[in-house]
């Protein structure tokens, strides 16, 4: 599975331009699902049909993992070939110095800033620029509207993994791996690889409208509180997948939460509870689709989210797959 993670993390796919990620995932899903389609916004919606549960029709369970990653979009090319930019998704200005960006056409660049950047405590993005090695506007290989994504080398640290864009290619990898391992299920599993999560859960909004699920889960990363002087948070790397209680935009359905916790306990899968005070996931959009959908999330603890080098624990990843496979493999009961 590490090879799958490595490949997913290297593919170019900022919000709104997820085509290459979608192609790779489509290849991986060959033979694993009964049908798949791409909707108007570019969400990849794959269906693995269930057998139903006795006389009851199969429940429609939607699992969303977003394909898109954050980046920077060029907004102006100045006469000397320096490129001003705006953020695509939440970009942290402090993380830009020393980072490398990759554009769709293969061009690469790094960041600089007006004046004396390293003396500035809180750099403003408006004063920063991308340097792609151009000497004038005319010889710049990229222009206004082009998007760069952050890139670093994938590294297998043994127990842990370093890679760019683990948010949320790790969720994509877990969903693909779960479909490989899920041999039989009573439920109709809608594996949805969504677009434009980082700019406002936009893909999940329309995909949930189209799928009309009975139950919805998001697979995404979450912050941890296990570093020196970290913000108070009980989630730590290596303690298993985190079952979401709430975040800034959603309160998980108590029945969904219980279903996941009961599954983890029944199969002896380490797990933890997540109360996230910043950010949200596709589950927030799925929950309020149409007349409402019981929704929750399995979160993968991750350090250094939204920086070019992110870290997850490989045991957590494998336990997330186990939790998902076992939760989906049996009847889904989310009564309160």
């Amino acid at each position: 599975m590490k090879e799958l993670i490595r490949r997913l993390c290297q593919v170019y796919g900022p919000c709104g331009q997820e085509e290459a990620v979608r192609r790779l995932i489509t290849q991986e899903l060959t033979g694993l699902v009964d049908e798949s389609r791409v909707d108007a916004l570019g969400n990849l919606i794959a269906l693995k049909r269930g057998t139903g549960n006795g006389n009851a029709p199969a429940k429609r369970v939607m699992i969303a993992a977003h394909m898109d990653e954050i980046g920077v979009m060029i907004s102006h090319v100045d006469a000397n070939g320096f490129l001003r930019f705006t953020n695509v998704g939440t970009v942290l200005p402090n993380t830009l110095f020393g980072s490398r960006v990759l554009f769709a056409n293969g061009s690469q660049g790094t960041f600089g800033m007006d004046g004396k950047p390293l003396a500035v405590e809180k750099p403003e993005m408006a004063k920063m620029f991308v340097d792609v090695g151009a000497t004038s506007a005319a010889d710049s290989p990229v222009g206004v509207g082009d998007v760069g994504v952050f890139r670093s080398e994938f590294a297998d640290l043994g127990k842990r993994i370093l890679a760019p864009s683990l948010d949320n290619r790790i969720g994509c990898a877990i969903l693909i791996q779960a479909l490989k391992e899920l041999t039989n299920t009573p439920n109709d599993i809608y594996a949805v690889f969504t677009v434009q999560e980082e700019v406002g859960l936009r893909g999940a909004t329309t995909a949930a409208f189209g799928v009309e699920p009975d139950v919805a889960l998001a697979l995404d990363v979450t912050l941890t509180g296990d570093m020196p002087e970290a913000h108070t948070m009980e989630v730590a790397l290596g303690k298993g997948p985190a079952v979401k209680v709430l975040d800034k935009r959603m309160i998980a359905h108590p029945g969904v939460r219980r279903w996941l916790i009961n599954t983890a306990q029944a199969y002896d899968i380490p797990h933890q509870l997540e109360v996230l005070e910043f950010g949200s996931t596709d589950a927030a959009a799925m929950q309020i689709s149409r007349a409402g959908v019981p929704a929750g999330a399995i979160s993968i603890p991750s350090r250094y989210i939204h920086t070019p080098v992110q870290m997850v624990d490989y045991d957590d990843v494998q336990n997330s797959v186990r939790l998902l496979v076992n939760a989906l493999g049996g009847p889904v009961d989310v009564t309160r």
Partner: protein
Amino acid sequence: MTNESLRSLISNTQYPLLEELSTARGVAGQEGAVRAILRQAITPHVNSVETDHLGNLIARKAAQNPNGGKPLGVMIAAHMDEVGGMVQKVNDDGTLKFRAVGGIDARILPGKRLIIGPQSVPGVVLEKPVHLGRSNSAATIDDLIIDTGGASGINPGDMITFENSYGTVGHLLKGKSFDDRVGCFILSELLKQEYPCDLVGVFTVQEEIGLRGAKVAAYSVAPDVAFALEGTIADDLPKDEDISSTTVLGKGPAISVMDRSAYADRRLVELLTLTAQEHAIPYQIKQPGVGGTDVGTIHLAQEGIPSVAVAVPCRYIHAPAALMNPADVLHTIELMAKALGRLPSVWESQQ
């Protein structure tokens, strides 16, 4: 649009409908006067006109000579509402406390003339004489008071707008509310022509307070493809630094690749840029990451709707008077008309 009708539009230096639209008063939730003008202007040219529960004006025009099969459904949105205010309280002395409706910049208000209520009562924003002490902090709406001299007939809830200023400044058109009455004007002009797609022109409400009219209109119209027409920011004054102007007056329609509200559908961006190149119509890419349009809610309606915004660059859009280049208006009409003409075949080949 035929070249002939475009030429006649360009040769005509007067735009009575644009003037009427700019002059009309209508903040979010009170777009009735603008709606009435538009209803009258478009009714002769379309198959049906209806109003929904939020006040969106929806005009439908069936495809002419479609390629066969079900014609492509195209929605074009332009919002009727303007930024302004609302009377909060009539003080005992007849002065008014007020609140902003939409993103108004309070710093520009002291000393400005405003028009209040259904009877269009004029008023002025009070400002302490500088002799009595200079205020170091920027004005906020909370601190400001409107004086009407105690005019009667004003009630809480009455709308407050800038006063009419339609005219010309040099080669530029001047007026209030070009954001987005220029979009309304362009959409009205587009509805006069025939296209090989089913066209639904939607004059939306409540854009300035959260793209709310477009949200429900897109839900009920449920088109295959959507465009929003806007008046957008131009920051093209001289600057010391070499930074983006967002858009520049006179360089043609501005296409939004990405703004705060949406990421444009790349196929539609390409349709517009290729169409412009083929017909030698000037165009520009708006500075990404700035502003938002009705596309923000339209593209999220139902199962998602591929959408893009096209705008006329305007200086000073949230101030009493904006400026724009009439050539940009005409080039926007031309670009949209040409793009709509080839949209169904391009779209089909991409499916």
